[in-house]
């Protein structure tokens, strides 16, 4: 793994927070994202994080902390 399950959990939580607050901030600049689009972006980000996290490290079968 590229990171520990605990850090992955924190990263997912922070992504959700950035998504929720970021959507509000973007609206101040006239960029409006619909709730469904936001949810889809969230799913993509979380999926990407999970794939990155579980991908084995190159040349090392051991897990990192």
């Amino acid at each position, binding site marked *: 793994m590229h990171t*520990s399950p*605990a*850090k992955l*959990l924190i990263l997912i*939580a922070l992504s959700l*927070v950035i998504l*929720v607050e970021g959507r*509000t901030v973007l609206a101040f600049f006239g960029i409006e994202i619909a*709730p469904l689009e936001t949810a889809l972006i969230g799913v993509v980000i979380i999926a990407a994080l999970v794939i990155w996290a579980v991908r084995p490290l190159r040349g090392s079968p051991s897990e990192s902390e």
Partner: protein
Amino acid sequence: MTALFIDEYPAEARVVKAAFLSSFIAFGIGALFGIIQALHRTDIFRFLESDKYYTVLTGHGVFLIIAFTIFFLVGLYQWAVTDSLERGPVDIRFTWLWYGLMAIGSFLAGISILAGFLEQPPMVLGSELRANVLFTFYAPLQANPLYYIGLALFLVGTWLAGIDWFRTWWAWRDENPGERIPLRTFMVLTTMIMFFLGSIGVIVAVLVFILPWSLEITESLNPLLTRTLFWFFGHMIVYFWLLPAYLLWYTVLPKLSGGRLFSDPLARVVFILFVLLSTPVGIHHQYMDPGIAEGFKFIAMTNTMFLLLPSFLTAFTVVASMEHGARQRGGKGRFNWLQALPWRNPAFTGMALAGLVFAFGGFTGIVNAGMNINYLVHNALWVPGHLHAQVGTATALTLMAGSYWLVPQLTGNRLVGRQVALFQVVLWFVGIVFMTNSMFRAGLVGVPRRTAEPQYQGFEYDVAVGSMGELNAQLALGGTLLFISALLFLTLMLLTVFNNDSEPIVDGTLPPALSGPEDSPPVLDNLRLWFGIALVLVILGYALPLAGIVAQSGLFGQDIQPFPVSSEAVMYLEFGLDYVGALIT
């Protein structure tokens, strides 16, 4: 493995556990009321009539921001004083006395609130037993006298707790002449000086005006005066909720990070600043109140902005301590040290995330404190958003995280479900962001707080982003996540208490600060000096506004009738006086 607190101080550990138990019971009831509100006012699920919403709302406020926080505070502070002075109280019976008074007071106030769910509440002390007066109990809203008696007993208990810790410190000082006050005890004592000073307002409001008025001993009161006396106490109490979290951030979080507190003197300065600044700012809660001259409001705003200073100092000191800890654990680089922090530890992660929300919530507090921009958000849903970010997360999440570290030391049992605990604190973090984001956005377009029916017929809010339906859904989702998180926390605490066949793996020792008290002038420990200056500032901040309010409408107002009005109260009081008179003669 160091000796556990329960092994070294078993009698004191029992008091701390009793206080925590009371705190967690209140937390469970308050959290239940929270989810009921979130689903009711968003019209997603309703099973109560809207008039009962105000019983729920009062209970949510009182059980959480009075009982949950302050019971936890007295438990935590009892631990802090005992552990840092390495001695118990002068007389443990006195310690149980203040806990008992607080428990009885909470019980009386609690049943007064819960009786509001009854269709026909019983008559007590001459009026119906109910207390739908919300946390602020603004007159002319009137509760049953039992509610105010309960509040008074709770306050007396809290005062006695402070006196108990001062007595313990005086005894320690006699045994250790010339020694600097240990940091945790210093934090406890300064917090209590702040509380003694700030709670005078609410004590006068309750004992001199509201309780006699509810018993119909006096016929009227001055609502602006009692509101102002409430807010004399009301902003200080914010810091009374927050300072236990500060104590944990300053003393436990650096240790959990793997390091030591960056600066003991800076921590002392921060607590002194709260003693000085927390009370003479309460009028900033009354910007919309007529009857207080604008000049006094402007001064209160200016004083409030000074309160940013201790918050910024705390952010610097705590983050510096965490960075030191991370580097001790092998962390390197400008930001990569963050990865070396112990994110698997729920106690650490909960406190760190709470601190992050506190920083964000603090900026929303600047909006509340600014006189002109406050008019936009006053009494709007923005304000509960701020409150939930600060006390509902900075404090509550820190206290939950602290429990994961402290409760095993108090029980001698290993924490059950460490990974679930990590998930719980992260879930709270996500839930609060969902909920407060929708509250802030709704508040900005004028959605009111403190109402079961925020939608008006024939009127649509001009929501800047998305729709009201979306905001409601987000609020309900956030509230649900918080409720699940609260249930998880309480379940883990319960399982840990009964996890008898285990050994805790927690180390309760706290390392000394990198820069210790010897690096600061002894005047920082001169508590009389700081109390004196704080008293002068309070007099400067409040003497003229209070005099102006009394000059306008008198001490007892002009024929202010209670709502709801109770004619039976007069009858019972007359009967009681006649009866006592007959007995005497």
